[in-house]
């Protein structure tokens, strides 16, 4: 795609990995019903058009931070294979965990044939 810098690879990540723990979401309304459906629609759209999607959770967070129990059936309903998941382990050595995480990310992409089909 001439002049387009998109990376074609993305990760679903929980709030706990985006914002600092001390800023963790306080008691707020559960608005995820409609938004989970929107997220599932968007993941399906990406997955069906040549994007590599992974999900990254946090061990110890409720639902690993991903609301996976609710999201997985929505994805299946949309004909999407569940994205590979990685669980960050906050309690282990940060350097080792970062290496493990980097290896996970480096090891996943769509098959070359799929990449050639879409990423032009």
């Amino acid at each position, binding site marked *: *795609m*001439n*002049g*387009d*810098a*998109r*990376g*074609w*690879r*993305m990760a679903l990540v929980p709030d706990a990995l*985006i*914002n600092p723990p*001390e*800023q*963790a979401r*306080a008691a*707020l*309304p559960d*608005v995820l*019903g*409609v*938004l989970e459906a*929107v*997220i599932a*629609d*968007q993941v399906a*759209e*990406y997955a069906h*058009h040549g*994007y590599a999607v992974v999900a990254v959770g946090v061990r110890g967070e409720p639902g690993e931070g991903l609301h996976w129990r609710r999201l997985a059936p929505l994805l299946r309903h949309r004909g999407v294979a569940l994205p590979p998941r990685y669980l960050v382990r906050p309690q282990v050595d940060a350097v080792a965990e970062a290496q493990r995480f980097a290896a996970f990310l480096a090891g996943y992409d769509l098959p070359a044939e799929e990449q050639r089909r879409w990423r032009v």
Partner: protein
Amino acid sequence: MGRRIDRGRKRGTEQNAPRKVALVANCLLNQNAKVCQGAHYPGLVSPVVEVLRKRGYVLQQLPCPELAFAGVRRWWAVYEQYDTPAYRTHCRRLAQAIAPLIEGYLRRGDEVILIGLDGSPSTGVRFTSSKPDWGGRPNRPEDDWEIQPRRGIWIEELEAELARRGLPALPATGWALDMGRFDEAGARRDLEQFLDSPETTEGSRDDGPVAP
């Protein structure tokens, strides 16, 4: 910084202490959501994240109405092409889904701002793209459009939903990514000026309209 509706409520424990929350356009945290040929970064727009993080903002990604409505392989479009009853209904549905979260932030005393995408037909804040006679087969790069000083459709509907709930207008600006020629340094300066301006830093902490 930003809008609060807590009437200066006393600050509680650290966990309950008011935070600075930035509602961020979906594509500023994921350039893969951009229209074909519109992505300027592989993933997130790192200068936006850097500037907000440096000032202590919690990031809250907004949904992308265009992606959900027209898909990831959609054509580029202008305001008038998205200004349809069906698209406005779609945006309104998303706004109704996200508004309770924004209201929750405001009611607990958080300071909330909105960072959109200037030039976007949907997420423009200061500017949107306009060409009333656009239609039919796209013809890039010959096609030309104009930049108009107005909100995009999604921002209009989101602000309307917040107003329906009796919430104050949020301080808002746009990262100038879709203005024709992208100037990263200029966009960064604009954002920093917005975040550091007295209007934004003081907002309406004690004078905003308060819903019952």
